[in-house]
């Protein structure tokens, strides 16, 4: 039984028409309706400047929305910060540390800022959090001497000081080495298995694809889509792919069999997936029967990246 079921909160984060216009007039988030189901690992995607961090700041009560409302763990934000935030761990726009304090003292300071954290267990909780992110041996080093990845880990440790129901991670793998990234993915999965909902913003799409159950895509402050990752990727349809040295024959045969959108590149022929009425096994049998030496036959699943690019466009420039 998950935490959500016990308290009857089925959505951990819910926003209605959430809007933020900065004082300069910049519309950073525009009418956001976001629903994060309990127990999900939720990927929050979007190009640079699309409003991800702004949304997270509003969810954490750091800035007031211009319009709309947000509830976190079933309580309105920012009104309920004092009751909600002890159950939320957050990493917002990179870690921020006291350079003149060592790693352990940084965590002690953040923990003592929480009036509902028990000081009697503080030392043990800090040690456990350091251990969890692999910083135990560097705990006595001044934070200003930490590398980017070590700082990121310490920031994560601060988010893990207490058992949390929701973890909000704004680009948590920024600056981490491949080993560190794997550890974060592993950590996220472990936390999710414990019933913690994880809200994860990232640019690394394959990372989102690997760990997330749900995702939302933002662009220029607007929500383009949200839902289970499988559905999103399915939105960009997969393609039939045949690997063969006899590409000419294969293309001709496939065309006769009704496959459209064919393209040939080196030893590969790809085409639109035929409708549900065509059995794929028959296609492959027909190819073999036609004397085509089939070395590979299958469906190339669309990646989340394809879906993302299809939604946000190929352009590289940041929208103003």
């Amino acid at each position, binding site marked *: 039984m998950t935490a959500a079921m016990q308290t009857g909160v089925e959505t951990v984060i819910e926003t209605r028409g959430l809007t933020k216009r900065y004082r300069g007039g910049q519309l950073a988030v525009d009418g956001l309706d976001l629903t994060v189901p309990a127990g999900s690992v939720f990927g929050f995607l979007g190009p640079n400047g699309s409003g991800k961090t702004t949304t997270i700041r509003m969810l954490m009560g750091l800035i*007031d929305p211009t319009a709309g409302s947000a509830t976190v763990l079933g309580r309105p934000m920012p009104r309920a910060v004092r009751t909600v935030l002890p159950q939320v761990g957050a990493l917002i726009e990179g870690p921020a540390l006291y350079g003149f304090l060592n790693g352990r003292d940084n965590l002690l300071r953040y923990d003592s*800022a929480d009036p509902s954290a028990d000081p009697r267990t503080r030392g*043990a909780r800090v040690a456990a959090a350091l251990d969890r992110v692999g910083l135990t041996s560097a705990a006595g080093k001044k934070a200003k001497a930490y590398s980017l990845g070590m700082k990121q880990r310490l920031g994560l440790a601060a988010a893990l000081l207490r058992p949390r129901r929701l973890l909000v991670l704004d680009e948590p793998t920024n600056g981490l080495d491949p080993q560190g990234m794997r550890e974060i993915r592993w950590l996220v999965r472990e936390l999710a298995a414990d019933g913690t909902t994880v809200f994860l913003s990232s640019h690394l799409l394959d990372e989102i694809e690997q760990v997330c159950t749900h995702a939302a895509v933002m662009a220029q402050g607007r929500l383009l889509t949200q839902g289970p990752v499988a559905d999103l990727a399915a939105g960009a349809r997969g393609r039939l792919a045949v690997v063969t040295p006899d590409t000419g024959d294969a293309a001709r045969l496939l065309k006769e069999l009704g496959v459209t959108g064919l393209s040939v590149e080196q030893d590969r022929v790809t085409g639109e997936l035929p409708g549900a009425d065509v059995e794929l096994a028959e296609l492959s049998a027909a190819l073999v029967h036609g004397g085509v030496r089939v070395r590979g036959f299958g469906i190339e699943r669309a990646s989340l990246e394809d879906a993302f690019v299809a939604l946000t466009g190929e352009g590289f420039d940041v929208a103003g």
Partner: protein
Amino acid sequence: MSRVEEVEGAGANGTADATGAADANATADGTGPVDATRTADAAGTLRGPSPLWTLGLFRSELTTTLRRWRTLALLGVLAAVPVLIGIAVKIETSDGGPVGDGGGQGPAFITQITNNGLFLVFAALAATLPVFLPMTIGVVAGDAIAGEASSGTLRYLLVAPAGRTRLLFAKYAATCAFCLVATLVVAGSALAVGALLFPLGDVVTISGTRISFGDGLLRAALVAVVVAASLAGIAALGLFVSTLTGSGIAAMATTVGLLITVQILDTIPQLHGIHPYLFPHYWLSFADLMREPVHWDEVVKNLGLQGVYVAVFGSAAWARFTAKDITA
């Protein structure tokens, strides 16, 4: 405009807490000490947080402030002032002549130091109160919020969640405690230097009467407390400035700049109409505590004026900070 924050202990919250505790128990992962912690935490959560836990933030504020090398350097300067005064007086009087032979008018109490080292405490406080002490407080108070904002640590304190009002109170309380620490550093250093270089003994008050050395020490302690309290106004002013900007350096510079401006205004005779409303105006009234009997008039005026500054700038800081967007 200020935000409304829900208070803890509401009905719905009780449920949430209990769930948190259940989660904690369910979260089993490997190592022994972790499990033990979680269980302890769960038990603690069930009993509910103690109101005393809130003091943790104040303690953390004060120790964090005192662990910055900048703070230590400022305290070092403060501690050096009595040493310099003591040595200067010692050198000038080594030929047996009284202080102030040259006709110069030094800080109050200087002339008595050679007879009684305890007077170095009063002389040092009188010398540091106009500039050094308030400058130190201005740096610490100005950096309080703005410094955390510029390093980004403010957002993590707020999502901890420290609570905006609570954080502001903790910051102010820690700054006031630091006022006392800074004053005691001056007084302590002065007492040590005074005892080392000069004789100690019965104290002759400004009114000419004699009190015992023990009574003199008590007076010195009282003076230190009053001097520390005199700094409450600039502490509140600095905290307010600190909520206005996201740059710690800018806030410190503004606060110290304001202090110097006000000190200058206080010396311009044409502006005597506004003098009674300037926060440093009655600062040196602490000398009245060395009279027999004590003249409380101006001391009370000073403390009252500090109270007004604390109320005005404290509310302004609160109104500003609780409504502010934290984007750094």
